[in-house]
């Protein structure tokens, strides 16, 4: 360990030195490009069907770039630019955190709740590389800033009920804010029974129950220095996954961080924020509620991460520079014990993630240069050192079945560079960006051992010899405004080299009973992913507006096959009426026929669908207090449908009436 720390420090310095050069040439401002979703809990908004107590997943789904893959009614997996978790860098306020489930049943977005967060920063492609390497983009779930507002005590309570699934939610938030000290405590509880798809078809094993509590406090040392501490505890129990053969009896996370912030408006160094953090996740899969399984098994997983970052912001008239130095150490272990139906036989055990340690350290630099009033050129770069070590001898020996020459440690160097040009005038704005990024294979892709994927019904074996996946991207965006009319277009193209995907090995025998065979993670020579969105909005009056978005996505590999999980033609249309105290919106959302599905990678065709939603909101003011109501109907016509992102075609919720009440006092 000590050796690693020394390595790590050495590398950081060398990386820092190395970074100087490109930093001067390249530049880019991600803050202006990044899409920000504000987790505005108690405000009125007509933006899609926003509920006060929406889950983080619901919030994320609002972004055009993001689709949530659903394996049930809980813990959806975010995808961005048609790329799933391993190609994204998802962080909580800059903190690296990794799910502990080998089957992606616990995306890290499931370990935080809206009560913990202030906003979500979404950076598409290399714009998302501030906190780590990615290909598809980065999602940073941001914790609230220090709140030295001196308003004393404040509290609020939320209650929610939805008819479909008998879904109950309750939240409580207590806050004290002083000049030098603040403390915030909140908790949220959610419980849902099985939901019904359209036509009252009950979806078995779609229940869940979870609670989340968090504590955040800060102390201001002086005008420039402050210390903040944040603790989040999240626990989900009895979570059903109708799309999978197993459920989850426990998904538990403890996320802790300590942050020091320095702020100064007068000097060149405007801000300096440093954080130390650690998080630990326990994830226990469970099949005891399933009546019919070929074999009973236990599949627990653990993931612990320790890390830090330190980021400095410099600013003058021309430059806006950010430098972020970060590092983490993660330990991922997962195991499987199967109990033969013949009780005379002993239990069968294997490590599915053989105690993989990941050590990463890297540096990110970004400069946004104002070329003129209208033009900005932004450049960014990230360099990092990435090491994987197999700590468990049994795990190393297991993988040596497939890779006899395998040693327990592998080093990689990763790099990301991006540049973006932006032009902004009164009637239009436009931007054009180029980027290059690399990522290391995920723990599953590198070291997974017989991980069953119910999507294509194959067992997957990791491949420690994989090259880094590399991506060249081009993106462009333009908006045109005229009176009350706005039209915008946004497109990205990714050319991904050494695209990691499972390849069937016909010589291998499946481990999972009933599986079709075994795929080994391998790399396609290249793959192309393209997405484009067209958005139009028109304000009929001050209060009445209409907007519509259509999107098209394309993904294909160098083997001539379509990539899986590529969104088909999609559309959204909305008419909204808004006043200060009331809002209503009617929304039509749907997908076209999935014609370019990927049968080669186990996908089947999903038919077109359309659903209609209605949502309303009121604000009532009672003396000093405020009440916010959000209510509406989702899937008014009770359509029975599933989308391309629904694992194994599990149907989505049918008609659902909901109401959320928030009381601020």
């Amino acid at each position, binding site marked *: 360990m000590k050796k690693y720390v020394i390595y790590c420090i050495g590398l950081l310095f060398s990386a820092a030195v190395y970074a100087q050069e490109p930093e001067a040439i390249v530049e880019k401002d991600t803050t202006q490009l990044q899409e920000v979703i504000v987790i505005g809990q108690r405000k009125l908004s007509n933006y899609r069907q926003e509920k006060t107590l929406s889950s983080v997943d619901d919030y994320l789904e609002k972004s055009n770039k993001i689709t949530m893959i659903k394996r049930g009614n809980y813990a959806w997996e975010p995808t961005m630019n048609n790329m799933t978790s391993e190609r994204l860098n998802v962080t909580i306020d800059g903190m690296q955190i990794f799910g502990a489930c080998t089957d992606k049943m616990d995306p890290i977005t499931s370990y935080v709740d809206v009560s913990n967060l202030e906003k979500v920063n979404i950076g598409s492609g290399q714009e998302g590389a501030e906190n780590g390497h990615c290909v598809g983009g980065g999602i940073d779930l941001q914790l609230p800033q220090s709140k030295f507002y001196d308003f004393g005590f404040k509290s609020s309570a939320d209650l929610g009920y939805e008819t479909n699934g008998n879904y109950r939610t309750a939240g409580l938030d207590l806050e004290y804010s002083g000049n030098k000290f603040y403390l915030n405590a909140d908790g949220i509880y959610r419980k849902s029974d099985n939901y019904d798809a359209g036509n009252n078809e009950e979806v078995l094993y779609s229940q869940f129950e979870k609670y989340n509590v968090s504590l955040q406090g800060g102390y201001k040392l002086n005008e420039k220095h402050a210390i903040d501490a944040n603790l989040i505890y999240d626990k989900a129990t009895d979570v059903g996954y109708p799309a999978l053969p197993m459920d989850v009896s426990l998904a538990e996370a403890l996320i802790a961080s300590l942050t020091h912030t320095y702020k100064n408006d007068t000097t060149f160094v405007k801000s300096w924020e440093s954080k130390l953090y650690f998080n630990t996740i326990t994830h226990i899969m469970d099949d005891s509620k399933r009546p019919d399984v070929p074999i009973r098994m236990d599949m627990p997983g653990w993931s612990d991460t320790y890390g830090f970052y330190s980021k400095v912001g410099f600013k003058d008239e021309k430059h806006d520079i950010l430098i972020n130095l970060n590092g983490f150490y993660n330990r991922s272990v997962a195991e499987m014990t199967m109990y033969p139906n013949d009780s005379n*036989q002993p239990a069968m055990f294997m490590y599915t993630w053989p105690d993989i340690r990941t050590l990463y350290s890297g540096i990110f630099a970004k400069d946004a240069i104002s070329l003129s009033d209208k033009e900005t050129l932004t450049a960014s770069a990230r360099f990092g050192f990435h090491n994987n070590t197999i700590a468990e001898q*049994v795990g190393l020996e297991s993988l040596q*079945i497939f890779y006899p020459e395998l040693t327990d440690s592998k080093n990689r160097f990763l790099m990301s560079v991006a540049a973006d040009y932006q032009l902004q005038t009164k009637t239009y704005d436009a931007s054009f960006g180029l980027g290059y990024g690399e990522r290391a294979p995920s723990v599953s892709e590198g070291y997974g051992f017989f991980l069953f994927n119910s999507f294509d019904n194959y067992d997957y074996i990791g491949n420690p010899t994989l090259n880094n996946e590399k991506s060249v991207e081009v993106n462009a965006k333009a908006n045109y405004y005229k009176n009350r009319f706005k039209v915008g277009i946004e497109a990205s193209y990714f050319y991904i080299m050494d695209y990691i995907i499972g390849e069937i090995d016909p010589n291998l025998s*499946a*481990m999972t009973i009933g599986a079709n065979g075994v795929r080994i993670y391998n790399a396609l020579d290249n793959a192309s992913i393209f997405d484009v969105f067209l958005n139009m909005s028109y304000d009929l009056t001050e209060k009445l507006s209409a907007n519509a978005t259509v999107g098209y996505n394309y993904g294909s590999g160098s083997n001539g096959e379509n990539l899986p999980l590529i969104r088909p033609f999609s559309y959204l249309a909305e008419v909204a009426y808004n006043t200060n105290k009331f809002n209503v919106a009617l929304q039509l959302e749907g997908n076209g026929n999935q014609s370019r599905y990927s049968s080669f990678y186990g996908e089947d065709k999903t038919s077109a669908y359309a659903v209609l939603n209605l949502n309303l909101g009121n604000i009532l003011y009672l003396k000093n207090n405020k009440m916010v109501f959000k209510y509406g109907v989702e899937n008014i016509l009770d359509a029975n449908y599933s989308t391309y992102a629904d694992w194994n075609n599990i149907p989505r919720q049918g008609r659902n009436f909901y109401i959320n009440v928030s009381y601020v006092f």
Partner: protein
Amino acid sequence: MKLKYILLALLIALFTVACSEDDSNYEAPIVNEVEGLNKVQEITNNDHTIELYTASGRFYTGYNAISIRIKDNTTDTYIENASVSWMPVMQMPTMQHSCPNTNPIKEPGKDTVYSGNIIYQMAFEDGTGWSLTVNYTINDMDYSSTAAITVMQNDDQNVSSFMGSDNKRYVVAMIEPKNPIIGNNELVVGVYEMESMMSFPVVQDFTLSLDPRMPGMGNHSSPNNTNLTYNSADNMYHANLTLTMTGYWVLNLKLMNTEGDILKGEAVTEDNIQSSLYLELEF
């Protein structure tokens, strides 16, 4: 800082070595040559007591690595210059037979221990039926000693005795791995022909195909296994055996002679889930 640690480590090492040297200088070395072994039983005649040892302290069907010591009953010391052979015999209702075995020879580096092996291909449920005769020569004097021994049935089939399609009887026994791991294991198998009731010579240059399966996992197999081939250095058959998880494994075998004719065993298919020639393993 670092130097200090190294010095400390060196000092500790020095002292440790010094201590053990003191011991050997001042006390007669009492080396227990059967350390780690357990005594199965003793066979006694008028002159000597023969001590039988195995790792478990018992005899089981299959391959048994056996160590013996011969104690002089009058002087109470262990004989260091004997030459030993043995003959295990199974008494059946109508006949008697022996089994494949290797006579004990002096274990390298030891003074009093002789080791060999016996592959009991069968056992009665109560462990009776087998006897062991040990013949030995000390200073040109021949001795013999016989006693009934107890051979327990192994939980897993680690030895198979069968008639081949060439109308000869064979015995196939697993010798390694003793402690299987999840991963690559060296599989060592002995193949013997039952030439007569009392003679079981090693069969040379045959091959055995290997197909390990887990019946509890829908007959899951493992990759990168190799076939068993003969190694003239130890007169045994060697292969790479990969095991993807702990549990109960069936090693399906096919025995082929030098011409490649299949003498016993069938390929595992959807319809034929197990070869008629197999060994079992559990860990």
